[in-house]
Protein backbone atom coordinates (compact mmCIF):
# COMPACT_ATOMS: atom_id res chain seq x y z
CA UNK A 1 0.00 0.00 0.00
CA UNK A 2 1.39 3.38 -0.88
CA UNK A 3 1.36 5.98 1.80
CA UNK A 4 -0.55 9.17 1.39
CA UNK A 5 1.32 11.63 3.50
CA UNK A 6 1.07 15.34 3.91
CA UNK A 7 4.24 17.34 3.34
CA UNK A 8 5.46 17.59 6.97
CA UNK A 9 4.52 13.98 7.67
CA UNK A 10 6.43 12.84 4.62
CA UNK A 11 9.47 14.73 5.84
CA UNK A 12 9.17 13.08 9.26
CA UNK A 13 8.79 9.58 7.88
CA UNK A 14 11.57 10.07 5.33
CA UNK A 15 14.09 11.37 7.81
CA UNK A 16 13.24 8.66 10.31
CA UNK A 17 13.58 5.86 7.78
CA UNK A 18 16.80 7.36 6.51
CA UNK A 19 18.56 7.95 9.82
CA UNK A 20 17.19 4.91 11.63
CA UNK A 21 16.98 2.64 8.62
CA UNK A 22 17.75 -0.50 10.66
CA UNK A 23 15.46 0.49 13.54
CA UNK A 24 12.25 1.34 11.72
CA UNK A 25 10.37 -1.91 11.10
CA UNK A 26 7.33 -0.68 9.26
CA UNK A 27 5.43 2.45 8.38
CA UNK A 28 1.75 2.14 7.63
CA UNK A 29 -1.45 4.10 7.54
CA UNK A 30 -4.87 3.20 8.75
CA UNK A 31 -7.96 5.41 8.50
CA UNK A 32 -5.72 8.38 7.79
CA UNK A 33 -3.45 7.97 10.82
CA UNK A 34 0.26 7.24 10.44
CA UNK A 35 1.85 4.51 12.52
CA UNK A 36 5.58 3.84 12.69
CA UNK A 37 6.74 0.64 14.33
CA UNK A 38 10.30 0.69 15.59
CA UNK A 39 12.66 -1.58 17.50
CA UNK A 40 11.84 -1.51 21.20
CA UNK A 41 15.40 -0.85 22.33
CA UNK A 42 15.77 2.27 20.19
CA UNK A 43 12.75 4.16 21.52
CA UNK A 44 14.80 6.64 23.56
CA UNK A 45 17.12 7.39 20.66
CA UNK A 46 14.24 7.85 18.24
CA UNK A 47 12.24 9.81 20.80
CA UNK A 48 15.12 12.22 21.32
CA UNK A 49 15.44 12.70 17.59
CA UNK A 50 11.70 13.25 17.14
CA UNK A 51 11.61 15.74 19.97
CA UNK A 52 14.70 17.75 19.15
CA UNK A 53 14.87 17.64 15.38
CA UNK A 54 11.29 17.14 14.23
CA UNK A 55 9.42 19.21 16.88
CA UNK A 56 7.38 16.39 18.35
CA UNK A 57 7.57 18.02 21.75
CA UNK A 58 4.12 17.13 22.97
CA UNK A 59 3.36 13.59 24.08
CA UNK A 60 -0.37 13.28 24.13
CA UNK A 61 -0.74 9.71 25.29
CA UNK A 62 0.92 6.35 25.86
CA UNK A 63 -1.14 3.19 25.83
CA UNK A 64 -0.80 -0.53 25.57
CA UNK A 65 -2.43 -3.08 23.31
CA UNK A 66 -2.73 -6.77 24.02
CA UNK A 67 -2.29 -8.74 20.80
CA UNK A 68 -3.05 -11.91 22.72
CA UNK A 69 -2.22 -14.89 20.52
CA UNK A 70 0.34 -13.15 18.31
CA UNK A 71 4.09 -13.30 18.83
CA UNK A 72 5.48 -10.33 20.73
CA UNK A 73 2.23 -10.06 22.54
CA UNK A 74 2.22 -6.52 23.92
CA UNK A 75 2.40 -3.30 22.02
CA UNK A 76 3.08 0.14 23.48
CA UNK A 77 1.94 3.10 21.42
CA UNK A 78 3.14 6.69 21.78
CA UNK A 79 0.81 9.38 20.52
CA UNK A 80 2.89 12.40 19.50
CA UNK A 81 1.98 15.87 18.36
CA UNK A 82 4.04 18.46 16.58
CA UNK A 83 2.57 21.89 17.19
CA UNK A 84 4.82 23.47 14.62
CA UNK A 85 3.81 21.35 11.64
CA UNK A 86 0.36 20.44 12.98
CA UNK A 87 0.91 16.72 12.60
CA UNK A 88 0.25 13.70 14.73
CA UNK A 89 2.12 10.41 14.52
CA UNK A 90 2.02 7.18 16.44
CA UNK A 91 5.20 5.31 17.36
CA UNK A 92 4.77 1.64 18.25
CA UNK A 93 7.04 -0.80 19.95
CA UNK A 94 6.41 -4.44 20.82
CA UNK A 95 7.53 -6.63 23.67
CA UNK A 96 7.41 -10.28 24.64
CA UNK A 97 4.79 -11.95 26.78
CA UNK A 98 7.32 -13.27 29.30
CA UNK A 99 8.51 -10.44 31.55
CA UNK A 100 7.37 -7.62 29.30
CA UNK A 101 9.75 -4.75 29.81
CA UNK A 102 10.48 -1.63 27.79
CA UNK A 103 12.46 1.51 28.36
CA UNK A 104 10.59 4.41 29.94
CA UNK A 105 10.42 7.60 27.88
CA UNK A 106 9.98 9.88 30.90
CA UNK A 107 13.47 11.22 30.26
CA UNK A 108 12.34 12.41 26.83
CA UNK A 109 8.77 13.46 27.60
CA UNK A 110 8.07 13.81 31.36
CA UNK A 111 4.35 13.66 30.49
CA UNK A 112 4.74 9.92 30.00
CA UNK A 113 5.00 9.37 33.76
CA UNK A 114 1.37 8.75 34.57
CA UNK A 115 0.56 7.19 31.23
CA UNK A 116 3.26 4.58 31.68
CA UNK A 117 1.98 3.88 35.15
CA UNK A 118 -1.42 3.25 33.59
CA UNK A 119 0.06 0.83 31.05
CA UNK A 120 1.89 -0.94 33.85
CA UNK A 121 -1.28 -1.11 35.90
CA UNK A 122 -3.44 -2.45 33.09
CA UNK A 123 -1.03 -4.73 31.21
CA UNK A 124 1.85 -5.40 33.59
CA UNK A 125 4.46 -4.00 31.26
CA UNK A 126 7.49 -2.88 33.24
CA UNK A 127 9.13 0.42 32.35
CA UNK A 128 12.86 0.54 32.98
CA UNK A 129 14.13 3.74 34.65
CA UNK A 130 10.66 5.03 35.42
CA UNK A 131 10.90 7.42 38.41
CA UNK A 132 7.80 6.18 40.22
CA UNK A 133 6.38 3.00 38.75
CA UNK A 134 3.36 2.15 40.85
CA UNK A 135 -0.15 1.11 39.95
CA UNK A 136 -2.35 4.09 39.26
CA UNK A 137 -5.99 2.96 39.21
CA UNK A 138 -5.96 -0.37 41.01
CA UNK A 139 -4.55 -0.67 44.54
CA UNK A 140 -1.14 -2.25 44.96
CA UNK A 141 -2.73 -5.19 46.75
CA UNK A 142 -4.34 -6.26 43.47
CA UNK A 143 -2.28 -8.86 41.70
CA UNK A 144 -3.77 -9.08 38.22
CA UNK A 145 -3.59 -6.96 35.10
CA UNK A 146 -7.18 -6.20 34.14
CA UNK A 147 -6.85 -5.16 30.50
CA UNK A 148 -5.08 -8.34 29.49
CA UNK A 149 -7.41 -10.42 27.40
CA UNK A 150 -7.38 -13.41 29.75
CA UNK A 151 -8.68 -11.34 32.66
CA UNK A 152 -12.41 -12.10 32.96
CA UNK A 153 -14.88 -9.27 32.46
CA UNK A 154 -16.59 -10.00 35.77
CA UNK A 155 -13.31 -9.84 37.65
CA UNK A 156 -11.86 -12.43 40.01
CA UNK A 157 -13.84 -12.91 43.21
CA UNK A 158 -11.81 -12.24 46.33
CA UNK A 159 -8.96 -10.64 44.39
CA UNK A 160 -9.40 -7.37 46.19
CA UNK A 161 -9.90 -6.64 49.84
CA UNK A 162 -12.87 -4.36 50.37
CA UNK A 163 -12.79 -1.74 53.09
CA UNK A 164 -14.73 -2.60 56.20
CA UNK A 165 -18.15 -0.99 56.36
CA UNK A 166 -18.31 -0.92 60.12
CA UNK A 167 -16.54 1.76 62.14
CA UNK A 168 -14.64 -0.70 64.31
CA UNK A 169 -13.37 -2.88 61.47
CA UNK A 170 -15.00 -6.02 62.75
Amino acid sequence: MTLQLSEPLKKTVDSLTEIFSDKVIEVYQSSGDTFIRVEADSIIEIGMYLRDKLHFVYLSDVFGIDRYTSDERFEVVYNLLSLKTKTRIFIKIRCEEENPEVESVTSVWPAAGWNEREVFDMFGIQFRNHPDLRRIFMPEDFQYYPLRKEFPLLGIPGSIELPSTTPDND
Partner: protein
Amino acid sequence: MKLTDIQSKVHSTFFNEHQKKLYQSLEDKHTSIEEMDDGDPLTTKMILNMGPQHPATHGVLRLVLQLDGETIEKNKLDIGYLHRGVEKIAENKTYQEFMPYTDRMDYLSPYSNNVALCTAVEKIAGVEVPERAHYIRMIGCELARISSHLLWLGTMVMDAGAISFFIWTFKEREKIYDIMDRIGGHRFTISHARIGGVANDLTDEATSHIKEFVNTFPNELRDYHKLLDRNRIFFDRNEAVGVLKTEDALKIGATGPVLRACGYALDIRKFTPYARYNEVDFDIPTRMEGDNLARYYVRMEEMSESIRIIQQCLEKLPNGPIRADNAKQAYPSKDEVYYSMEGMIHDFMMTDTGICPPEGAESYHAVESPKGELGYYIQSDGTGHPWRLKIKAPSFSNLQVLENVLDGEMVADTVVIIGGLDPVLGEADK
Protein backbone atom coordinates in the same frame (compact mmCIF):
# COMPACT_ATOMS: atom_id res chain seq x y z
CA MET B 1 14.59 18.59 55.17
CA LYS B 2 12.97 15.28 55.07
CA LEU B 3 10.25 13.76 57.14
CA THR B 4 11.40 10.22 57.61
CA ASP B 5 9.62 7.08 58.47
CA ILE B 6 6.12 8.16 57.55
CA GLN B 7 5.07 4.52 57.57
CA SER B 8 5.28 4.14 61.32
CA LYS B 9 3.19 7.25 61.90
CA VAL B 10 0.18 6.32 59.80
CA HIS B 11 -2.15 3.44 60.44
CA SER B 12 -3.94 2.23 57.37
CA THR B 13 -7.01 0.09 57.74
CA PHE B 14 -7.30 -1.30 54.22
CA PHE B 15 -5.30 -1.79 51.00
CA ASN B 16 -2.21 -1.95 53.16
CA GLU B 17 0.22 -2.64 50.37
CA HIS B 18 -1.19 0.28 48.39
CA GLN B 19 -0.92 2.75 51.25
CA LYS B 20 2.60 1.57 51.99
CA LYS B 21 3.77 2.20 48.45
CA LEU B 22 2.00 5.55 48.25
CA TYR B 23 3.65 6.89 51.39
CA GLN B 24 6.97 5.41 50.31
CA SER B 25 6.65 7.23 47.02
CA LEU B 26 5.93 10.50 48.82
CA GLU B 27 8.94 9.92 51.03
CA ASP B 28 11.12 9.30 48.00
CA LYS B 29 9.98 12.35 46.01
CA HIS B 30 12.75 14.92 45.44
CA THR B 31 15.23 12.77 47.31
CA SER B 32 18.01 14.22 45.22
CA ILE B 33 17.71 17.39 47.31
CA GLU B 34 20.31 17.45 50.02
CA GLU B 35 18.95 16.60 53.43
CA MET B 36 19.66 19.54 55.71
CA ASP B 37 18.78 18.02 59.02
CA ASP B 38 16.42 15.44 60.34
CA GLY B 39 15.29 17.21 63.45
CA ASP B 40 11.95 18.93 63.60
CA PRO B 41 11.88 20.39 67.10
CA LEU B 42 8.80 22.51 66.54
CA THR B 43 6.91 19.64 64.86
CA THR B 44 5.67 21.88 62.10
CA LYS B 45 5.80 18.99 59.65
CA MET B 46 2.87 16.76 59.07
CA ILE B 47 1.30 14.49 56.53
CA LEU B 48 -2.15 15.60 55.48
CA ASN B 49 -4.51 13.34 53.63
CA MET B 50 -7.03 15.28 51.59
CA GLY B 51 -9.83 13.29 50.12
CA PRO B 52 -11.04 11.06 48.63
CA GLN B 53 -14.26 12.26 50.24
CA HIS B 54 -13.34 15.91 50.53
CA PRO B 55 -16.05 17.97 48.81
CA ALA B 56 -13.62 20.52 47.42
CA THR B 57 -11.56 17.98 45.55
CA HIS B 58 -14.24 17.74 42.84
CA GLY B 59 -14.89 14.06 43.04
CA VAL B 60 -12.89 11.27 44.59
CA LEU B 61 -9.41 12.70 44.34
CA ARG B 62 -6.99 11.95 47.13
CA LEU B 63 -3.97 14.10 47.84
CA VAL B 64 -1.25 13.14 50.24
CA LEU B 65 0.51 16.32 51.23
CA GLN B 66 3.63 16.76 53.26
CA LEU B 67 3.35 20.10 54.97
CA ASP B 68 5.87 22.33 56.60
CA GLY B 69 3.65 24.66 58.54
CA GLU B 70 1.25 25.90 55.89
CA THR B 71 3.47 25.24 52.89
CA ILE B 72 3.23 22.09 50.84
CA GLU B 73 6.70 20.60 50.70
CA LYS B 74 5.74 17.78 48.40
CA ASN B 75 2.67 15.92 47.38
CA LYS B 76 1.44 12.76 45.73
CA LEU B 77 -1.91 12.17 44.13
CA ASP B 78 -3.83 8.98 44.48
CA ILE B 79 -6.52 8.41 41.89
CA GLY B 80 -8.51 5.37 40.87
CA TYR B 81 -11.31 5.58 43.42
CA LEU B 82 -13.80 5.86 40.58
CA HIS B 83 -12.15 3.31 38.31
CA ARG B 84 -14.87 1.29 36.60
CA GLY B 85 -12.79 -0.20 33.81
CA VAL B 86 -14.73 1.32 30.94
CA GLU B 87 -12.03 0.30 28.46
CA LYS B 88 -12.55 -3.32 29.42
CA ILE B 89 -16.32 -2.88 29.23
CA ALA B 90 -15.96 -1.35 25.77
CA GLU B 91 -14.21 -4.47 24.50
CA ASN B 92 -17.32 -6.45 25.31
CA LYS B 93 -19.94 -4.12 23.89
CA THR B 94 -20.92 -2.93 20.47
CA TYR B 95 -19.91 0.62 19.69
CA GLN B 96 -23.39 2.00 20.10
CA GLU B 97 -23.98 0.06 23.30
CA PHE B 98 -20.86 1.60 24.76
CA MET B 99 -22.03 5.16 24.21
CA PRO B 100 -24.02 5.58 27.45
CA TYR B 101 -20.84 4.72 29.34
CA THR B 102 -19.14 7.72 27.78
CA ASP B 103 -21.81 9.97 29.29
CA ARG B 104 -20.57 8.88 32.66
CA MET B 105 -16.93 9.61 31.92
CA ASP B 106 -16.89 13.39 31.92
CA TYR B 107 -20.30 13.75 33.48
CA LEU B 108 -20.21 17.53 33.29
CA SER B 109 -20.30 17.62 29.52
CA PRO B 110 -21.81 14.33 28.30
CA TYR B 111 -22.56 15.61 24.83
CA SER B 112 -18.88 16.12 23.96
CA ASN B 113 -18.08 12.58 25.03
CA ASN B 114 -20.84 11.11 22.86
CA VAL B 115 -19.61 13.07 19.89
CA ALA B 116 -16.01 12.02 20.57
CA LEU B 117 -16.93 8.34 20.47
CA CYS B 118 -19.21 8.69 17.44
CA THR B 119 -16.67 10.63 15.39
CA ALA B 120 -13.98 8.07 16.23
CA VAL B 121 -16.19 5.16 15.14
CA GLU B 122 -17.26 7.05 12.03
CA LYS B 123 -13.63 7.64 11.15
CA ILE B 124 -12.60 4.00 11.48
CA ALA B 125 -15.72 2.64 9.75
CA GLY B 126 -15.87 5.30 7.06
CA VAL B 127 -19.38 6.56 7.79
CA GLU B 128 -20.51 9.77 6.14
CA VAL B 129 -22.46 12.03 8.45
CA PRO B 130 -25.12 14.34 6.98
CA GLU B 131 -24.48 18.05 7.08
CA ARG B 132 -27.35 18.87 9.42
CA ALA B 133 -26.20 16.32 11.99
CA HIS B 134 -22.76 17.96 12.11
CA TYR B 135 -24.30 21.30 12.97
CA ILE B 136 -26.63 19.84 15.58
CA ARG B 137 -23.62 18.12 17.17
CA MET B 138 -21.67 21.35 17.21
CA ILE B 139 -24.54 23.14 18.95
CA GLY B 140 -24.70 20.32 21.51
CA CYS B 141 -20.95 20.31 22.09
CA GLU B 142 -20.76 24.04 22.60
CA LEU B 143 -23.71 23.99 24.99
CA ALA B 144 -21.91 21.24 26.88
CA ARG B 145 -18.78 23.37 26.98
CA ILE B 146 -20.70 26.30 28.45
CA SER B 147 -22.38 23.99 30.94
CA SER B 148 -19.05 22.50 32.04
CA HIS B 149 -17.36 25.88 32.30
CA LEU B 150 -20.29 27.22 34.32
CA LEU B 151 -19.86 24.45 36.84
CA TRP B 152 -16.14 25.15 36.94
CA LEU B 153 -16.80 28.87 37.45
CA GLY B 154 -19.30 28.32 40.24
CA THR B 155 -17.20 25.84 42.17
CA MET B 156 -13.91 27.62 41.61
CA VAL B 157 -15.31 30.90 42.90
CA MET B 158 -16.86 28.98 45.77
CA ASP B 159 -13.48 27.45 46.55
CA ALA B 160 -12.11 30.98 46.65
CA GLY B 161 -14.74 31.93 49.20
CA ALA B 162 -17.85 33.26 47.42
CA ILE B 163 -20.75 30.88 47.98
CA SER B 164 -23.61 32.75 46.33
CA PHE B 165 -21.89 32.80 42.95
CA PHE B 166 -22.38 29.06 42.68
CA ILE B 167 -26.16 29.50 42.73
CA TRP B 168 -26.05 32.05 39.89
CA THR B 169 -24.03 29.88 37.57
CA PHE B 170 -26.31 26.97 38.37
CA LYS B 171 -29.30 29.05 37.35
CA GLU B 172 -27.79 29.24 33.87
CA ARG B 173 -26.76 25.57 33.90
CA GLU B 174 -30.34 24.71 34.68
CA LYS B 175 -31.38 26.40 31.42
CA ILE B 176 -28.87 24.24 29.53
CA TYR B 177 -30.30 21.14 31.20
CA ASP B 178 -33.73 22.20 30.01
CA ILE B 179 -32.41 22.68 26.49
CA MET B 180 -30.78 19.24 26.58
CA ASP B 181 -34.08 17.81 27.77
CA ARG B 182 -35.79 19.33 24.76
CA ILE B 183 -33.06 18.22 22.37
CA GLY B 184 -32.76 14.59 23.36
CA GLY B 185 -35.16 13.79 26.18
CA HIS B 186 -32.53 13.70 28.91
CA ARG B 187 -31.37 16.49 31.11
CA PHE B 188 -28.03 15.08 32.14
CA THR B 189 -26.67 11.95 30.46
CA ILE B 190 -28.07 12.89 27.13
CA SER B 191 -26.70 10.22 24.71
CA HIS B 192 -28.14 12.17 21.82
CA ALA B 193 -25.46 11.54 19.19
CA ARG B 194 -25.63 8.31 17.22
CA ILE B 195 -23.05 6.66 15.03
CA GLY B 196 -23.81 8.20 11.65
CA GLY B 197 -25.67 11.24 12.94
CA VAL B 198 -27.88 12.12 15.86
CA ALA B 199 -30.90 10.43 17.43
CA ASN B 200 -33.53 12.97 16.55
CA ASP B 201 -33.88 16.35 14.93
CA LEU B 202 -34.05 19.63 16.79
CA THR B 203 -37.65 20.52 17.45
CA ASP B 204 -38.88 24.09 17.04
CA GLU B 205 -39.27 24.27 20.79
CA ALA B 206 -35.65 23.25 21.34
CA THR B 207 -34.43 25.71 18.71
CA SER B 208 -36.35 28.58 20.25
CA HIS B 209 -34.95 27.74 23.68
CA ILE B 210 -31.40 27.65 22.33
CA LYS B 211 -31.98 31.01 20.62
CA GLU B 212 -33.30 32.51 23.81
CA PHE B 213 -30.32 31.18 25.77
CA VAL B 214 -27.86 32.51 23.20
CA ASN B 215 -29.48 35.94 23.45
CA THR B 216 -29.61 36.15 27.22
CA PHE B 217 -26.39 34.41 28.23
CA PRO B 218 -23.95 37.16 27.11
CA ASN B 219 -25.65 39.49 29.61
CA GLU B 220 -25.09 36.96 32.36
CA LEU B 221 -21.46 36.61 31.33
CA ARG B 222 -21.11 40.38 31.50
CA ASP B 223 -22.49 40.31 35.03
CA TYR B 224 -20.02 37.61 36.04
CA HIS B 225 -17.20 39.75 34.67
CA LYS B 226 -18.51 42.78 36.53
CA LEU B 227 -18.52 40.86 39.75
CA LEU B 228 -15.14 39.17 39.46
CA ASP B 229 -12.85 41.19 37.23
CA ARG B 230 -12.28 43.91 39.80
CA ASN B 231 -12.81 41.80 42.88
CA ARG B 232 -9.86 42.19 45.19
CA ILE B 233 -10.40 38.94 47.10
CA PHE B 234 -10.83 36.92 43.93
CA PHE B 235 -7.64 38.40 42.50
CA ASP B 236 -5.60 37.82 45.63
CA ARG B 237 -6.72 34.22 45.79
CA ASN B 238 -5.98 33.46 42.15
CA GLU B 239 -3.18 35.66 40.89
CA ALA B 240 0.18 33.88 40.75
CA VAL B 241 -1.35 30.80 42.35
CA GLY B 242 -0.75 27.39 40.83
CA VAL B 243 1.59 28.72 38.18
CA LEU B 244 2.45 26.35 35.39
CA LYS B 245 5.42 27.76 33.53
CA THR B 246 5.13 28.07 29.77
CA GLU B 247 8.25 25.99 29.20
CA ASP B 248 6.90 23.19 31.40
CA ALA B 249 3.36 23.11 30.06
CA LEU B 250 4.10 21.06 26.96
CA LYS B 251 6.62 18.87 28.74
CA ILE B 252 4.24 17.61 31.38
CA GLY B 253 1.41 17.30 28.91
CA ALA B 254 -1.10 19.92 30.02
CA THR B 255 -4.13 20.12 27.79
CA GLY B 256 -7.18 22.26 27.15
CA PRO B 257 -7.65 25.60 28.91
CA VAL B 258 -4.74 24.81 31.25
CA LEU B 259 -2.37 24.65 28.30
CA ARG B 260 -3.93 27.66 26.60
CA ALA B 261 -3.47 29.70 29.79
CA CYS B 262 0.26 29.07 29.34
CA GLY B 263 0.37 30.60 25.90
CA TYR B 264 -0.04 27.66 23.55
CA ALA B 265 -3.01 28.00 21.21
CA LEU B 266 -3.54 24.27 20.89
CA ASP B 267 -7.20 23.59 20.25
CA ILE B 268 -8.24 20.41 18.43
CA ARG B 269 -11.09 22.32 16.78
CA LYS B 270 -8.43 24.27 14.87
CA PHE B 271 -5.59 21.72 14.94
CA THR B 272 -7.51 18.98 13.12
CA PRO B 273 -11.00 20.37 12.52
CA TYR B 274 -13.80 17.85 12.90
CA ALA B 275 -17.54 18.23 12.33
CA ARG B 276 -17.83 21.64 10.62
CA TYR B 277 -15.59 23.69 12.86
CA ASN B 278 -13.64 24.81 9.82
CA GLU B 279 -16.75 26.57 8.52
CA VAL B 280 -17.45 28.67 11.56
CA ASP B 281 -15.47 31.62 12.73
CA PHE B 282 -14.04 31.62 16.25
CA ASP B 283 -10.87 32.49 18.12
CA ILE B 284 -8.75 30.53 20.56
CA PRO B 285 -8.31 32.61 23.70
CA THR B 286 -4.86 32.35 25.25
CA ARG B 287 -3.01 33.92 28.15
CA MET B 288 0.66 33.93 29.03
CA GLU B 289 0.71 33.87 32.83
CA GLY B 290 -0.19 30.22 33.41
CA ASP B 291 -1.73 30.94 36.81
CA ASN B 292 -5.25 30.39 38.04
CA LEU B 293 -6.36 33.84 36.97
CA ALA B 294 -5.19 33.18 33.42
CA ARG B 295 -7.24 29.97 33.39
CA TYR B 296 -10.23 32.00 34.55
CA TYR B 297 -9.88 34.46 31.68
CA VAL B 298 -9.34 31.70 29.12
CA ARG B 299 -12.47 29.81 30.15
CA MET B 300 -14.59 32.95 30.36
CA GLU B 301 -13.57 33.92 26.84
CA GLU B 302 -14.17 30.38 25.64
CA MET B 303 -17.75 30.69 26.78
CA SER B 304 -18.29 33.79 24.64
CA GLU B 305 -16.62 32.03 21.72
CA SER B 306 -19.01 29.12 22.22
CA ILE B 307 -21.96 31.50 22.04
CA ARG B 308 -20.52 32.85 18.78
CA ILE B 309 -20.23 29.32 17.39
CA ILE B 310 -23.80 28.42 18.37
CA GLN B 311 -25.11 31.60 16.73
CA GLN B 312 -23.32 30.78 13.50
CA CYS B 313 -24.52 27.16 13.63
CA LEU B 314 -28.12 28.29 14.05
CA GLU B 315 -27.76 30.59 11.06
CA LYS B 316 -26.11 27.98 8.89
CA LEU B 317 -28.17 24.99 10.05
CA PRO B 318 -29.01 23.29 6.74
CA ASN B 319 -32.08 21.22 6.07
CA GLY B 320 -31.80 17.54 5.36
CA PRO B 321 -31.48 14.16 7.01
CA ILE B 322 -30.00 13.85 10.49
CA ARG B 323 -28.58 10.35 10.17
CA ALA B 324 -26.69 8.45 7.49
CA ASP B 325 -29.21 6.73 5.24
CA ASN B 326 -27.42 3.41 5.11
CA ALA B 327 -28.86 0.62 7.20
CA LYS B 328 -25.47 -1.14 7.39
CA GLN B 329 -23.89 1.84 9.07
CA ALA B 330 -26.50 3.61 11.16
CA TYR B 331 -29.82 2.97 12.82
CA PRO B 332 -32.75 3.36 10.42
CA SER B 333 -35.34 5.99 11.29
CA LYS B 334 -38.18 4.93 13.54
CA ASP B 335 -40.65 5.37 10.68
CA GLU B 336 -38.87 2.63 8.78
CA VAL B 337 -38.62 0.40 11.82
CA TYR B 338 -42.33 0.59 12.59
CA TYR B 339 -43.67 0.30 9.08
CA SER B 340 -41.30 -1.94 7.12
CA MET B 341 -39.89 -5.41 7.65
CA GLU B 342 -36.43 -4.44 6.31
CA GLY B 343 -36.27 -1.53 8.69
CA MET B 344 -37.16 -3.82 11.57
CA ILE B 345 -34.47 -6.35 10.62
CA HIS B 346 -31.86 -3.64 10.19
CA ASP B 347 -32.74 -2.12 13.52
CA PHE B 348 -32.34 -5.53 15.11
CA MET B 349 -29.02 -6.12 13.36
CA MET B 350 -27.69 -2.72 14.42
CA THR B 351 -28.57 -3.49 18.02
CA ASP B 352 -27.27 -7.04 17.96
CA THR B 353 -24.06 -6.74 15.93
CA GLY B 354 -23.73 -3.07 15.23
CA ILE B 355 -21.31 -1.50 12.87
CA CYS B 356 -18.24 -3.59 11.95
CA PRO B 357 -15.12 -1.66 10.94
CA PRO B 358 -12.68 -3.55 8.68
CA GLU B 359 -10.43 -6.10 10.33
CA GLY B 360 -7.11 -4.76 11.56
CA ALA B 361 -8.12 -1.15 11.09
CA GLU B 362 -7.01 1.28 13.74
CA SER B 363 -7.61 4.95 14.15
CA TYR B 364 -7.45 7.78 16.60
CA HIS B 365 -9.80 10.69 16.66
CA ALA B 366 -9.78 13.53 19.12
CA VAL B 367 -12.23 16.29 19.86
CA GLU B 368 -11.79 19.38 21.99
CA SER B 369 -13.87 18.64 25.05
CA PRO B 370 -14.30 21.39 27.66
CA LYS B 371 -11.37 19.90 29.59
CA GLY B 372 -9.02 19.49 26.65
CA GLU B 373 -8.11 16.89 24.07
CA LEU B 374 -10.47 13.95 24.40
CA GLY B 375 -9.39 11.20 22.04
CA TYR B 376 -10.56 7.71 21.23
CA TYR B 377 -8.15 5.18 19.82
CA ILE B 378 -9.97 2.19 18.35
CA GLN B 379 -8.48 -1.02 17.03
CA SER B 380 -10.91 -3.31 15.28
CA ASP B 381 -10.79 -7.05 14.77
CA GLY B 382 -13.56 -6.98 12.20
CA THR B 383 -16.39 -7.77 14.62
CA GLY B 384 -18.93 -5.43 16.12
CA HIS B 385 -16.84 -5.04 19.29
CA PRO B 386 -13.61 -3.09 19.42
CA TRP B 387 -10.48 -5.14 20.05
CA ARG B 388 -8.98 -2.26 21.95
CA LEU B 389 -10.50 1.06 22.81
CA LYS B 390 -8.31 3.59 24.53
CA ILE B 391 -9.60 6.86 25.87
CA LYS B 392 -7.20 9.74 26.14
CA ALA B 393 -8.80 11.61 28.99
CA PRO B 394 -7.84 15.28 29.37
CA SER B 395 -8.49 15.33 33.13
CA PHE B 396 -5.94 12.55 33.57
CA SER B 397 -3.28 14.67 31.87
CA ASN B 398 -4.22 17.74 33.86
CA LEU B 399 -4.08 15.88 37.16
CA GLN B 400 -0.49 15.03 36.39
CA VAL B 401 0.05 18.77 36.07
CA LEU B 402 -1.52 19.22 39.50
CA GLU B 403 1.06 16.92 41.06
CA ASN B 404 3.76 19.10 39.56
CA VAL B 405 2.40 22.55 40.40
CA LEU B 406 1.31 21.91 43.99
CA ASP B 407 4.81 21.68 45.48
CA GLY B 408 5.66 24.91 47.23
CA GLU B 409 2.11 26.26 47.31
CA MET B 410 0.13 27.08 50.44
CA VAL B 411 -2.18 24.39 51.72
CA ALA B 412 -5.15 26.77 51.65
CA ASP B 413 -4.61 27.30 47.93
CA THR B 414 -4.86 23.60 47.15
CA VAL B 415 -8.60 23.63 46.58
CA VAL B 416 -8.38 26.79 44.49
CA ILE B 417 -5.73 25.20 42.28
CA ILE B 418 -7.78 22.03 41.90
CA GLY B 419 -10.74 24.23 41.03
CA GLY B 420 -8.68 26.10 38.47
CA LEU B 421 -7.43 22.96 36.76
CA ASP B 422 -11.00 21.62 36.73
CA PRO B 423 -10.39 17.86 36.64
CA VAL B 424 -13.29 15.41 36.51
CA LEU B 425 -12.51 12.17 38.22
CA GLY B 426 -15.07 10.15 36.29
CA GLU B 427 -12.93 10.78 33.25
CA ALA B 428 -9.50 10.59 34.83
CA ASP B 429 -10.26 7.27 36.53
CA LYS B 430 -11.97 5.71 33.51
